């Protein structure tokens, strides 16, 4: 049994809608575990709550209810001061390498900021560490005096990675870290994250909408739909034999590349669009679009059930996963 790094239980995040009594049910009861050293992928379409969940995990959002434990300590109730030592252990990499770096600061300052904030190193040591970090992420240490605009998108994402690594964290939550990049550059950054995981024994929560990327990087994957996890399990079995009808439809929607005959599945074109998270459907949230829905799906919300082999799915009519 490997060590549990992060445990989320019944996480809920509701955002009030201005000038109305409505609330957006962004995350609506998510429980999951992240083991030390693994990569947990979180996939889902826009608005499914995957980014909100990522921020809840590192407490960049305050949960409406539920708890997050980091190495056994409940971090949901901690004050800012109490939280500080945990902040060092949990870092985040953001999607937009243009918006997440301060354009007025030099790269050296950006990467040195974590050391200043946490007062963990002397000035001389900070300077040395920053140069090391730039080298680790494949940038030249001579770049410390340049500004973010002087770098390409891929290089900026490397700066974001260097900043996240600065305080030697245990956990990195990466929210769409490669989706703004071209494929050839995307592959470079994915390979970099992979190497860093081996070198620094990092644990990743990797949030993305690109199913190919998530499959490539993740040991386990959680599939989200309208604020809930509908299926979670090891990557390869989940992709080969999905249990939840939404996972099946999502995978079948990816147009396969011409030469990938094995990837060819019958495309299930879902009718309609994702319902509003302000007023999610009762019962199973996927039932209005689900080709297998029956009466029970309209009234009773299915819970994540154990399907063996570390696989869980929340469905009243799970697809046969025994084809493996």
């Amino acid at each position, binding site marked *: 049994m490997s060590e549990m790094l992060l445990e989320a239980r019944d996480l809920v995040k509701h955002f009030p809608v201005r000038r109305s009594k409505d609330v957006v049910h962004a995350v609506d009861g998510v429980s999951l575990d992240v083991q030390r050293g693994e990569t947990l992928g979180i996939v889902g*379409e826009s608005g499914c709550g995957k980014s909100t969940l990522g921020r809840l995990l590192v407490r960049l959002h305050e949960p409406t209810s539920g708890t997050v434990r980091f190495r056994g300590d409940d971090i949901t109730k901690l004050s800012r001061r109490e939280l500080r030592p945990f902040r060092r252990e949990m870092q985040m990499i953001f999607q937009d390498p243009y918006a997440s770096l301060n354009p007025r600061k030099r790269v050296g300052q950006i990467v040195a900021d974590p050391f200043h904030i946490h007062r963990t190193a002397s000035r001389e040591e900070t300077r040395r560490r920053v140069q090391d970090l730039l080298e680790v992420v494949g940038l030249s240490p001579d770049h410390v005096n340049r500004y973010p605009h002087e770098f390409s998108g*891929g290089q900026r994402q490397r700066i974001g990675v260097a900043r996240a690594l600065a305080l030697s964290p245990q956990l990195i939550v990466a929210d769409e870290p490669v989706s703004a990049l071209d494929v*050839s550059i995307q592959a470079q950054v994915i390979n970099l994250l992979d190497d860093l995981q081996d070198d620094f024994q990092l644990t990743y929560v990797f949030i993305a909408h690109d*199913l*190919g990327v998530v499959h490539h990087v993740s040991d386990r994957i959680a599939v989200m739909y309208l604020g809930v996890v509908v299926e979670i399990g090891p990557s390869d079995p989940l992709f080969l034999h999905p249990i939840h009808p939404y996972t099946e439809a999502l995978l079948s*929607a990816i*147009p*396969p*590349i011409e030469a990938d005959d094995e990837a060819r599945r019958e495309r299930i074109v879902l009718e309609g*669009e994702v319902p509003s998270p302000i007023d999610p459907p009762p019962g199973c949230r996927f039932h209005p679009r689900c080709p297998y829905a029956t009466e029970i799906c309209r009234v009773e919300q299915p819970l994540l059930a154990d399907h063996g082999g570390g696989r869980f799915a929340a469905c009243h009519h799970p697809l046969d996963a025994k084809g493996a």
Partner: protein
Amino acid sequence: MPDALLEVRDLSVSFRTENGVVRAVDGLSLSLALGEVVGIVGESGSGKTVSMMAVMRLIRDPNAVIEGEVLLRGRDLMRLPQNEMRLVRGGEIAMIFQDPMTALTPVYTVGWQIAEQLRAHEALSRKQARARVVELLAEVGISNPGRRVDDYPHQFSGGMRQRVMIAMALSCNPSILIADEPTTALDVTIQAQILELMKRLQRDYGSSIILITHDMGVVSDLAERVAVMYAGSVVEEGSKSAVFRDPQHPYTWGLLGSIPRVGRPRVRRLAAIPGTPPSLLSPPEGCRFGPRCPHRFDRCSIRPELAPRVSADRLDACHLDPAIRPSLRQRSVA
């Protein structure tokens, strides 16, 4: 090819800037047959969009220098007076864009916008135009079109807005549709809906389509022929199955190796292409891909022509001996 509907010959687009001349498109040649779907793939800055904007003569930048020929049924669009070109745009060639929110004006209803286009090309009364718009909206799968016709763009979701754009593009029965990243802004399940719609329309109307995309899956799904662009020109062209199953250019090898494939067992590492695309201000001498190519040799200092080297319908711009390419490819993708 005498039966080409559209033929682009040696198209170049340069922009004069403070720092020098940016050669965005550098000798692009491409042909499109009647009823054919051609995909142009390539990364940001490879010139996919700029070249098609030039074909549509939509580049208004006074610092742009555009050279080359664009023959539509033998007629050179580059020499057409503005008023005639206006009839070609929308009438014979229509374009849909990646972001339907910026391509539609927020201050008019979608019905008004489509009707405006219709009436610019055909003598229709307001009432006739409106009836035709409702038909078109139904055709692209918008439910309750009689009511939706009076909605504003912000009242539609991303997928529905893209359907509106497609309805507008089809309104005058164009012979050519240029679709610039039509599904890039959409989620996969919505993308699947739009791809099915485009396939159906292509079948029903027999339109010829130029599809611009960076997504190899999308191009595999729709296109019959594929052109791969790098740094302003085509480096490889052929049938979809030839380009994806037997790619000839080292850039295509790298591009295909960079993509995590869903249907294949997971590989430990992606075969990323080292370095970054060249600056178009001072592109490298000789082969544009040379500095990033693991197989370059002395001949690569001379720029290779796009020419048939493997078979008559397979074009590539690479000096490597076709006989040794398969073994090199094995090594670079493995």
